[in-house]
């Protein structure tokens, strides 16, 4: 265990969706080997001991895969390190005495539930609108009867690694969800299994995305730069292409 470090925290506190929030300041003794969330655990224990309300924040697997954790740290979703989620961010990325500002994902489509917790149900509804292959259980053919070239499988996999955390939306100045939608559309449009619904899928998903109140993409690239799974910007170009093709065909 390394040395102890003092971190000054400015944390967004908001009671619920209907109230306005404000920043509160705390000071925490941390260790460089702690994860950022473990530092919040320490803060919360401290708050409970002092008879105050702990900070609500979303987290679950703490190994960077569930997509639940969501903090904007000094203006950047999941903090300063590239390619990691908040739970995999360690305090060694900060210095003793640093002041760190922590905010929730901010977007109309992700209303705040409390403090740093937001509601990302919009993503589920986008998937429900078309992010699937319509194949009922039991109707599948033998797995090896669908041959998929390795490069296509790899491209589809790369897109499929999206964890649905919403960092893309939170980083985008327009709160656009194009990277999220693009990733799913790319995965399924690349694979032979996704061909049957290729056009209807992209149109349905884009319609739902717009209805949820996400902004339009202006290709700043902030989403891909902040994506903890490093989903490339090319999935957005692909989404555009798929959508226009579908529209051209009258979908």
């Amino acid at each position, binding site marked *: 265990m390394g040395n102890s470090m003092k971190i000054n925290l400015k944390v967004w506190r908001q009671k619920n969706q209907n109230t306005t929030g404000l920043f509160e300041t705390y000071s925490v003794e941390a260790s460089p080997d702690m994860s950022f969330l473990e530092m919040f655990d320490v803060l919360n224990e401290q708050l409970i001991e002092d008879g105050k309300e702990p900070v609500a924040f979303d987290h679950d697997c703490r190994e960077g895969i569930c997509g639940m954790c969501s903090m904007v740290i000094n203006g950047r979703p999941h903090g300063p390190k590239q390619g990691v989620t908040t739970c995999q961010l360690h305090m060694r990325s900060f210095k003793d005495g640093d002041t760190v500002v922590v905010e929730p994902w901010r977007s109309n489509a992700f209303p705040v539930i409390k403090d740093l917790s937001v509601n990302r149900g919009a993503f589920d509804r986008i998937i429900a609108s078309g992010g699937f292959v319509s194949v009922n259980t039991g109707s599948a053919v033998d797995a090896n009867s669908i041959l998929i070239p390795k490069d296509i499988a790899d491209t589809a996999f790369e897109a499929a690694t999206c964890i649905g955390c919403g960092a893309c939306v939170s980083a985008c100045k327009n709160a656009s969800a194009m990277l999220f939608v693009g990733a799913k559309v790319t995965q399924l449009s690349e694979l032979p299994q996704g061909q049957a619904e290729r056009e209807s899928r992209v149109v349905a998903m884009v319609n739902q995305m717009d209805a949820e109140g996400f902004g339009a993409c202006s290709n700043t690239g902030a989403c891909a730069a902040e994506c903890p799974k490093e989903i490339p910007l090319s999935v957005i170009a692909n989404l*555009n292409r798929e959508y226009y093709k579908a529209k051209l065909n009258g979908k």
Partner: protein
Amino acid sequence: MSFLFSSSLGRKLVMAVTGVSLIAFLLVHCLINAMVFFNDGGATFNVAAEFMSSNWLIRTAEIGLFVGLLLHIVQGLWLVGDNRKKRKSRYQIDGGSANSTWYSRSMGLLGTIILIFLVLHLKHFWVVSRFEIPHGITEEHTLFHEMVEIFLNPVAVIVYVLGCISLSYHLLHGFSSAFQTLGVNHKSYTPLIKSLGVVFSIVIPLIFAAIPVVMHLGLIK
């Protein structure tokens, strides 16, 4: 076709297609303007300018250009306004500089500056070339003379240079962004497009900006 004005992707398509047309226009415009560098008292330039204002094909295309420009402006401003509304509660700290370029995040602002410049620019030259010169063309009153006259004024020169700088940054993002919106993203072509975009965004506005400067300095007469 209503999706071009209702869906976020449709609206972006309008921006990209009109953007690419405007890029093409800029290239033509710049080539013609560059003819002043022959330093022949505007002779070559005037021939080209007159061709542009009298050829019916060009004049028809010009209508298309204006429609495109108008769409680009209206759709653009509308999108910027809409996008801003998607985040009512703003961040305390804006971490944008860590993940994107300032000009990619400022297309609305840059576009607006260009728009203001454009109003002035159209009044200076387009109105003159289309409505005044054709009615009273004389040896003394050519578009070239108009330029020389206007650029005597240092304020005009500064405004034009600022306009060109805005244009440069607007293009620096807009050029490659248009291709991304059109769905062109390829392992080997995209880097090529990006480099081409950078060269275009620097060279074209530079040529544009050089004209008022050299004219003001009297290097071209």
